[in-house]
């Protein structure tokens, strides 16, 4: 018994004048844990961005909970999906202020997060004092973990994780992978070159079939 959450149907995407995908199809069911594989530049991140309406398809359709993704429902879709981009540059200023501002958004207001934030910091090996540091001064690995923590604090159940463990050392990679795979209800769509994700049984999807840019 599986219910369909996301469906990419005959997706075609052109990038810089050449075709990145033609007729890509993928169905993601609720609770699925998928890892997208394929060489760099094959468009794995693009697939995530399409679902979030950051990029648009040239042909084909994306369905979310059975409805076609469009400008009218994209704003609600974004509120249901947690996205951790491989670009960890999410803002500047004191980490605490950055997090507080996110929780001052209309949609997140009233969500309690302080206690959970502290326990997550601890779990991911960050000292609590990090929240008083400037985000832009943190290391790549620290930024990655802060991004992950924010995405978890938002209380969503669908995660798009784009190379979220790339800057972490092996132990932390394990911790992140464990953390996300532990929760059976969560739906994960992961892009990663880390083989840490491979040690568990995740369904693999190969993204390929594109032309190479000259």
């Amino acid at each position, binding site marked *: 018994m599986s219910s369909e959450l996301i469906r990419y149907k005959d997706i075609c995407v052109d990038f*810089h*004048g050449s075709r990145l995908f033609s007729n890509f199809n993928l169905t993601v069911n609720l609770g699925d844990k998928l890892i997208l594989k394929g060489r760099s530049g094959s468009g794995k991140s693009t697939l995530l961005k399409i679902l*979030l*309406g*950051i990029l*648009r398809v040239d042909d084909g359709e994306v369905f979310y909970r059975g409805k076609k993704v469009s*400008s009218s429902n*994209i*704003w609600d879709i*974004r*509120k249901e*999906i*947690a*996205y951790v*981009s491989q*670009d960890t*540059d*999410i*803002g*500047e200023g004191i980490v605490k202020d950055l997090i507080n*501002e*996110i929780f001052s*958004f*209309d*949609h*997140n207001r009233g969500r309690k997060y302080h206690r959970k934030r502290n326990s997550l910091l601890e779990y991911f090996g960050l000292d609590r004092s990090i929240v008083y540091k400037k985000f832009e001064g943190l290391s790549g690995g620290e930024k990655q973990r802060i*991004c992950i923590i*924010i*995405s978890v604090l*938002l209380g969503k159940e669908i995660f798009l994780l784009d190379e979220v463990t790339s800057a972490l050392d092996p132990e932390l990679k394990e911790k992140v992978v464990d953390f996300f795979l532990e929760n059976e209800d969560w739906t994960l769509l992961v892009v990663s070159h880390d083989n840490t994700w491979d040690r568990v049984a995740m369904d693999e999807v190969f993204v390929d079939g594109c032309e190479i840019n000259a």
Partner: protein
Amino acid sequence: MPDEISYTGLFFGFLLLIIPLLIMRYVRLNMGKESLTAILRMTIQLFLAGLFLTFVFDMNNPVLNLLWFFLMVSFAAFESVQRQEMDLKSLYLPTLGAFLGGTFLILMYVNAFVIDLANVFEAPYLIPIGGILLGNSLGGTIIGVGNFYSSLKRNENRYVSRLSFGAGMNEALMPYVRKGLRSSLKPAVGDISTIGIVHLPGMMSGQLIAGASPFLAIKYQIAVMVSVYVSTVTCVTLAIFLTSRICFDEYGMLKDHVFRNTPDVA
């Protein structure tokens, strides 16, 4: 009345230009022609303005005064979009709206309640004070709106992240709005705080030369500085929010074609 400057006097004024010309010759700076062209252009423009203002002041017709002010506003909007290197076609109208909202309404308020004019469309107030508000807001808007879009483009990921963290469009744009406003207000605040010490501003100097009492001159200057500040903040904010209605698509993503000089991805 201040002492008249005769045309002979003006000639002596121009004679001063020999100094920079000699300096340029000595240091072999090739800017003589450029400078002289600019000065010639300025002279012609001001003579035309003199002719036109004489006419407008003589008539002192509210409709004509307003028309002249709106002409200045429409030119400011053009200049603003042009200097931000943005697409004129899509951004002109919202920018025009921002300048109208940010200068005209404040100008009317100042004329009515601060200077306490019986006729708020009086040419000698409407046009020069309008010009000061407009000129300063224009400078601020070019910097502020330009900064807003350039930092959005440079740090698009921050914007996208905020959207994915549950922000509405305005919430996601806030850091950029803050940045834009800060960059446009910094010079304004700097100007305000050095005034009276470092320099006497043009308007005040003009009134002093025209024989006004220093206290009258400073009161005008204070009123003008406050309204310049208010109208800059208003224009920049309005320009950001009005243009952003146009510059983002219905998915909340920045449209590429609103920028000029962006090479087409093809």
